[in-house]
């Protein structure tokens, strides 16, 4: 079974940006929060509620993988979401447009997508246990 990312306890979020910084740092070799596959936002300013824009790990057909011309993105076997092989990516940007929840970011320097790889670094660096890697339920 493959794990996917969930944000079940966002009511506890303090808006510290730690998850975004972790994703950028550990996966995308960047100091910059925009280079993170999780994007935390306040809705209605800081007095509003905190939300996490994350990959919802579509079951097949996986829209981003479907449009990928090089199989850089492929559906994960027996689960939800996709696998990403950066070396295969030609930077066509189609996955960004295809994402139904618009959570694939774009790294314009490298000309590559910023996608979730379900690694759990954001979970490790969340101080309030808002995030979790969960077993994907298929079907």
């Amino acid at each position, binding site marked *: 079974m493959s794990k996917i990312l969930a944000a079940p306890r966002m009511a506890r979020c*303090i*808006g510290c*940006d*730690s998850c975004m910084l972790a994703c950028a*740092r550990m996966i995308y070799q960047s100091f*910059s929060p925009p280079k993170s596959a999780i994007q935390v936002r306040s809705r209605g*300013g*800081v007095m509003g509620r905190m939300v996490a824009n994350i990959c919802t790990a579509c079951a097949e057909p996986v829209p981003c993988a479907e449009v990928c011309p090089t199989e850089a993105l492929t559906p994960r076997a027996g689960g939800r979401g996709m696998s990403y092989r950066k070396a295969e990516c030609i930077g066509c940007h189609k996955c960004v447009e295809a994402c139904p929840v618009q959570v694939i970011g774009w790294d314009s320097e490298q000309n590559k997508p910023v996608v979730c790889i379900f690694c759990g670094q954001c979970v490790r660096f969340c*101080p309030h246990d808002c995030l979790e890697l969960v077993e994907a339920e298929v079907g």
Partner: protein
Amino acid sequence: MLNTDFVRVLHLDLTTGETRVEDRRDLWRDYLGGTGVAFRLLSESVHDDRDPLDPSQPVVFANGPLTTIFPVVTKAAAAFRSPLTGEYGESHAGGHFASALRYAGYDALLLTGAAKRLTYLVIDGDKVELRSADAMRGMDTTETGRVIRDLVEGAGHRSILRIGPAGESRIRFANGNVDTFRHFGRLGLGASLGSKNLKAIAVIGQKPIDLPADSRAYKKLYAEIYDRVLHTDAMKKYHELGTPANILPLNEMGALPTFNVRQGYFGEAAEISGEAFAEGELITKRACAGCQIGCIHVALYRRPFAPGWEYESTMVAYDHELLYAVGSLLGIGNRPPILRLIEEIDRAGMDGISCGTALAWATEAMEKGAIGPQQFGGIDLRWGDAERYSRAVAAIVKGDTEVGQWLGQGEVAAARHFGALEYVAAAGGQGIAGYWTGYAHVLGHLLGARHSHLDNAGYAIDQKLDPYTDEAIVDHIIADEAERIVQTSMAICLFARGVYDLGTIGQALSSVGIEHSADDLRSMGQRIYWERVRLRERLGFQARLEDIPHRFFETPTPRGQLEPERMARMLEIYQARRASALS
């Protein structure tokens, strides 16, 4: 800035709208960032012979080399000529301001001149734009933030610094509100921005900054510091009850300033304690960008507005200093009225501590007959009466009465005007923070560059120092401030000072390719300390016994009643240290 060897300064002349970007190697080498860079840029551009509110006076903001890229490195330092004291002004704020500035591509922002009409500034990476804020005249800080959030494109990764009506009317202790819950609080930055017709600064930071090619040391150290921040006792206090955890222990030792510092004990302290707020009103906590602590304690302020179970509610952030300044200091022992005053003062855009100390002075001056309600639009101030204090806050902002106008200049100016200096509870021209612990607290306030308890933690020296000798007190005040200069030059939140000793700071810098040993950093802090004293003296600072009011020698502290003679000896010791450092 990261991956370079310079500090990038964005200069903006608000009179002409012209901008210039300057890359300063000398600042990177000798001043690092934050306090060091802000102070240095101010010293190069401030006018010694002009009023603090003269449009030509500069206002500087700076983040630091470690901003956002390590846990709890969240602060921006502002430097300006203080409208409240007339001398050096420095103030620090959290929120997302430092972070947004970093990712917009700047380490410092230097503003000069004044816009012709009310304006707000948008910095979006290389795009710098001045826009009309005519429609925001008189708008409170909450609504100004809301409107600008709607007007400025770009979701997330941005920060909005704004002033309220108090800043527009140059109230001398007006603050700058950052992202609703944080502030450049003390010494009147809001009035300086008001004098520039600058209602707000929105910064959008989205630029990519790459990790160093070999990032192993950096990632490892980040994780270590993260674990120290969250899984040791180093910062426990700040994420549990927060600073209001201080209320009860201070009260127990007789060190909670009450009724305008006439006593150090408040009978109703239990009602306004951190514990009481946490149980009754606390609904959530919030954090600055890159801080996993989340010390911002947010209360629900809920009140009925009509019969029939009609309620309105707002969210109000509270901390120890506010619970003191509009609680014990004014004799208010109920939580909802305290939240009400915090909210009103905050929306008007005033510093909560200074507003509280001004109101406390006014209450006592009225009680003793030095001022009268007829000079204050009929407001007859009474200890503990929040309704009257609420009217007084509005009257200060409005400035249409004699007392209101003078209170807007700060209680020291008001006391001089009305001849009631004996009720002043300020050191170095600024009302004191919420501790009444002894000599070091008072002396630290006077000698500190921000005239703040956070400069040198005199309140902690009073509680811990043994033996408590004159020399040791003075030397600790100087040494603690010099070390804190290193932390605030990074610009680390001082709540994390237990995590970031100089060795750790050196390692953190080294992991991103900046080499400074702990010893280098220590000497840099000491050098900047005395350079800053020199600038402060240029702007009028003197360490004089006359600037410590009578009140402080009347009210007993846990260290006994303070004696002017002993304080004078400490000032002599300070003068000797000064003479040898500056010779």
